[in-house]
């Protein structure tokens, strides 16, 4: 009898322990009546316990969403559809966050002041900026599809952002961190297209950087004939790997401070003016990328500190310029394959050029324009 009592108690404890796995699921949109339901995403993210998962049914949600606790917001696959869309309200968007650079941003999905500290995970949802209206002049104000503000961390995976198109201020995904503990944010396997200014932005204004970003496996298509930078990082540590980046003005940019080494590897970059631009970033590596149909494959700027970036094992084809050194020394360029370009190396510095052995074919003029 006593043994049975112990067993039933154990069973009750096991049930209690396993209950939260079910209780922590909530739902928006009415497609899964077995779960606790909320009429809007905003109400759900405010109301659920920290750490919950909120399933969002297919449909269009005209909302501006602010998330301030750790949770997972996940698109549901129901009735042959799996596209929940967070769309801009016809009444316009409110400015809801000021970035570390002072820009006032109207974010369609904002992650900010997360209490208790923890990860916010977004997955399987489309954030559509069509017809978005921002109350302040733009720029300097801005529109962002998804914005992770200072002090937040988490993952943006299998999301779509599209049509953040206000002139010169539309951002697809924007993550940042200022002063405070270091944060890690992963942006992976997303489709980011038709943003007018930047597809994916990750930035920190601290030295050493307080943000580690992993930007991986995304497909970013810049707005054709526009000034779009597809992936831009500034002052962070991190990796930009395995992305497909096409269209716009600049493919992948590392700007910011010298002490912000970034790995740019295995990306495919095409149909763009500047493939990879490195303004700063000593110790950064640019390896095993492919660039095609690009005006300038690599552009360098910044202070030229040693050690500078290393460019190795990349392949470029059908370019006008392979590398514009901009007279910056200490850039190591070796073991690359450069084929089919009008010019090879522009403004290569007279000393410490770092130019090693590369495979060069079908280049009209290998070196052009000297530096003072």
């Amino acid at each position, binding site marked *: 009898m006593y043994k049975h009592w112990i067993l039933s108690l154990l069973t009750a404890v096991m049930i209690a322990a396993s209950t939260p796995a079910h209780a922590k699921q909530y739902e928006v949109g009415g497609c899964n009546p077995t779960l606790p339901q909320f009429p809007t995403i905003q109400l759900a993210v405010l109301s659920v316990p920290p750490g919950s998962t909120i399933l969002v049914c297919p449909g269009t949600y005209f909302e501006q969403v602010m998330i301030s606790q750790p949770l997972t917001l996940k698109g549901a696959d129901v009735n042959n559809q799996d596209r929940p869309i967070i769309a801009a309200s016809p009444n316009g968007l409110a400015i809801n966050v000021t970035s570390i650079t002072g820009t006032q941003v109207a974010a369609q999905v904002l992650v900010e002041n997360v209490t208790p500290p923890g990860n916010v995970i977004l997955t399987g949802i489309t954030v559509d900026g069509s017809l978005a209206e921002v109350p302040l002049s733009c720029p300097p104000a801005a529109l962002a599809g998804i914005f992770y503000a200072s002090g937040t961390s988490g993952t943006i995976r299998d999301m779509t952002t599209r049509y953040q198109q206000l002139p010169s201020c539309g951002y697809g995904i924007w993550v940042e961190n200022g002063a405070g503990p270091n944060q890690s944010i992963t942006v992976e396997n997303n489709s980011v297209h038709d943003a007018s200014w930047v597809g994916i932005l990750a930035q920190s204004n601290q030295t050493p950087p307080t943000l580690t970003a992993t930007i991986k496996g995304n497909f970013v298509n810049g707005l054709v004939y526009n000034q779009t930078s597809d992936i831009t990082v500034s002052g962070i540590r991190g990796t930009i790997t395995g992305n497909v980046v096409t269209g716009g003005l600049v493919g992948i940019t590392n700007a910011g401070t010298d002490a912000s080494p970034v790995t740019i590897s295995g990306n495919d970059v095409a149909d763009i003016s500047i493939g990879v631009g490195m303004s700063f970033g000593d110790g950064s590596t640019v390896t095993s990328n492919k660039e095609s149909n690009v005006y300038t494959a690599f552009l360098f700027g910044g202070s030229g500190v040693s050690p500078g970036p290393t460019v190795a094992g990349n392949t470029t084809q*059908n370019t006008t310029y392979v590398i514009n050194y901009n007279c910056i020394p200490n850039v190591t360029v070796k073991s690359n394959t450069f084929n089919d370009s009008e010019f090879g190396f522009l403004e290569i510095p007279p000393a410490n050029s770092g130019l090693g052995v590369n495979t060069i*074919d079908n280049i009209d003029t290998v070196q052009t324009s000297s530096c003072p």
Partner: protein
Amino acid sequence: MSRHLAWFFLAVAMLVVSAPLQAVTYEVGGCKTGASYVNFTTISAAVSGVPAGSTIQVCPGVYPEQVTISQPLTLKGITFNNSSRSVITINNPTGAPLAPNVTSIEAGPVYAQVLVQNVIPLGSVNIIGITVDGTGGGAGCPTLAGIFYASGTSGTVNEVAMRHQLTPGCFFASGNGIWAENGASLNQTITVENSSVHDFDSTGIQAISEQFPSTLTATIKGNFASNFVDVTVQHDRAQGIQNIGATSAIMDNFITSGSGNTPSTANLFGVISYPDANDDVGNVITASGNTVADLYGYAITSQQFGDTAKSNKLSNVYAGLVVFFAVVESNTVMNTSQGYVFNASNPQCASEGTISGNVVNDSSLAFFGLPLVQIQKNQVDSDDVVQMSPQCP
């Protein structure tokens, strides 16, 4: 003494044996001179004037020639004086410059800028580091090819650049980059790798065999096809890489048709494979590790039963993968109108085969013609409609 004599003869014999190692270098263009060089003024004179198996170095410069290669050799562009571009051009861009010099097993007379044909003795013809520019070659609407490997030939094309094979204003598009084919002949092997093919209006790289089993094994690897357009009256289709009845591995290529290039209908193809005119089935392709983007049309299309499409990345295209029946694994498709289209007229739909581990994100329609049981082996996100398959359970 006799021992000294023996040593002497041995030394002479060694000199004779090693002499070929100090053979002359064959060169075109005049950038390399001296006793160890034999110079030719044209590529055509060189390819017919050197011994079989030679390597011909081509200096940077412009060579307005139509070249026919009929013996095994290597033609290689070199770097000299700050340039590494040796470019073969149309003789006279303003006139009717080319002669039809080969009849294709598939497409009739072809005007090839560089033709590899009737190679005797049998052996490989390798073309490395050369640019072939077709500017002006479209006058009179010929079927134009930058490099053409005719039936019975083999070899490797590496690090070349093909450009401006265009037929503007013609009714049908017929500007082609690299063309390899084999008819009723011994099996041949042709590799096209690491090459840049751009600004053409028909096919960037193609492999054709009309035999069953296929007599052509092609490896098409690491090439970049870009900026292909349709400038013809008919708005015919244009494709980056095409396989007709050959057995081909098409891998790690990077294919884009250029930003803003949106013809009136979705008639651009990244990789397309279909049976030959005899409808021989069984000559299959494996398309793996390719990236296809920015193309108003179809990224990878397989009309051949038994093809494999694996680990490709397809983005910003009208449709990702269009397949009749194939192994379709681990591909990622984003930003499309249609993700994966299967042959819904097949009574069983695509209920057989391996169709798993694929990702489709951000598509108006994720799967067409694929049974639900197959869809569940794949990952879908942010698609307006997951499945459209009226005939499929």
